[in-house]
């Protein structure tokens, strides 16, 4: 019966977390509120089938996004999109190997923390392989926040670089034109 209280607490926390509009707010809110339950109620075990049900629902939620329209868009930029996906996955595998070696993490925790997938999916995988779900959740929250924080700076720096490049190019063309003019006068 206690598990119902934990789930209810989790849903309240998730709802509040969603209201904050922070990346990962729902998961973190649910985690904190159901974790808070540990302070007031005896520890509970998840019911059998919880993980399987969650895996099934998550697979369905991602599966419904793969439609014919998505495939049509995919065809138009297939090479670029697959190249990007492969680079991110292989990069993450390399980072996982490095972190697993440097910090002594088990490889399940290392991969699920570094993989560029969605946080809920990775947390669900974590439970299936006995990895440290709390570390994985922390890694993904940090990743999502850092992208949001870095994006304006990256875009600003890039547009400044592009502006400088175009200014340099315009300067070069101007100088070239002046030289041509001098040559013509001589």
């Amino acid at each position, binding site marked *: 019966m206690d598990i119902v209280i*934990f*789930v209810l607490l*989790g*849903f309240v*926390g998730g*709802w509040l977390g*969603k209201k904050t509009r922070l*990346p990962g707010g*729902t998961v973190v*809110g*649910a*985690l904190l509120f*159901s*974790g*808070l339950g540990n302070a007031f109620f005896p520890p*509970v075990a*998840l019911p059998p089938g919880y*993980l399987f049900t969650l*895996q*099934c*629902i998550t*697979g*369905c*939620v991602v*599966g*419904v*996004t793969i439609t*014919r329209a*998505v495939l049509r868009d995919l065809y138009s930029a297939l*090479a*670029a*999109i*697959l*190249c*990007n996906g492969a*680079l*991110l996955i292989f*990069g993450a595998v390399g*980072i996982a190997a490095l*972190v697993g070696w440097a910090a002594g*993490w*088990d*490889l*399940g925790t290392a991969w699920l923390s*570094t993989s*560029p*997938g*969605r946080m*809920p999916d990775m947390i669900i995988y974590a439970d299936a*392989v006995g990895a440290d*779900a*709390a*570390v994985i959740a922390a*890694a993904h929250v940090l990743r*999502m926040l*850092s*992208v*949001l924080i870095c*994006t304006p700076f990256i875009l600003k720096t*890039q547009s400044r670089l592009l502006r400088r490049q175009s200014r340099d190019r315009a300067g070069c063309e101007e100088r070239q034109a002046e030289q041509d003019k001098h040559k013509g006068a001589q």
Partner: protein
Amino acid sequence: MSARESKQGLAKSIFCVAALGLVGSGAGQFSGLSGGAMAGAFLVVAAGNLVGLPADRLPRGAMFWVQALAGVMIGVQMTTEKLAALVSVLPPLLLIVSLLLAVGFMSSLILHRFFGWDFMSAWLASSPGRMQDMIILASSLNARSERVAVTHIVRIALVIMATPVILALWT
């Protein structure tokens, strides 16, 4: 489409997704791969969608349920000792985040230089951020939001398919 037809369509889709999801996750579980149930459900629902079955919609709150239940799953196992232990893993976490940002940046440069994408769309598509945030940013910055969305959907799908394989090979 009238509201009634839309409701009927949604009910049909939920039924179809549930049936396909159960078949897929059952097969995935049977395969013995770690997380095979998730990858199986994903593959069968996506395949059903592509062959024309009405399996392309779920209620708006479905993602909230997944996220809340995933949060509960960690929450019930959370103890003060575990919370304290999180502080000690901060340096590896910061290393992971900075390296992932570097890989995302490199990938965006490749999309920009070799595939001719504008840099803004390239970064928003290849940054390891949350899909919803990146699509919202793309729309507000007049980047190619459809490309950003498809790239993130493919990334998520690739990770879901690759994870059981990577875990099986690695652990």
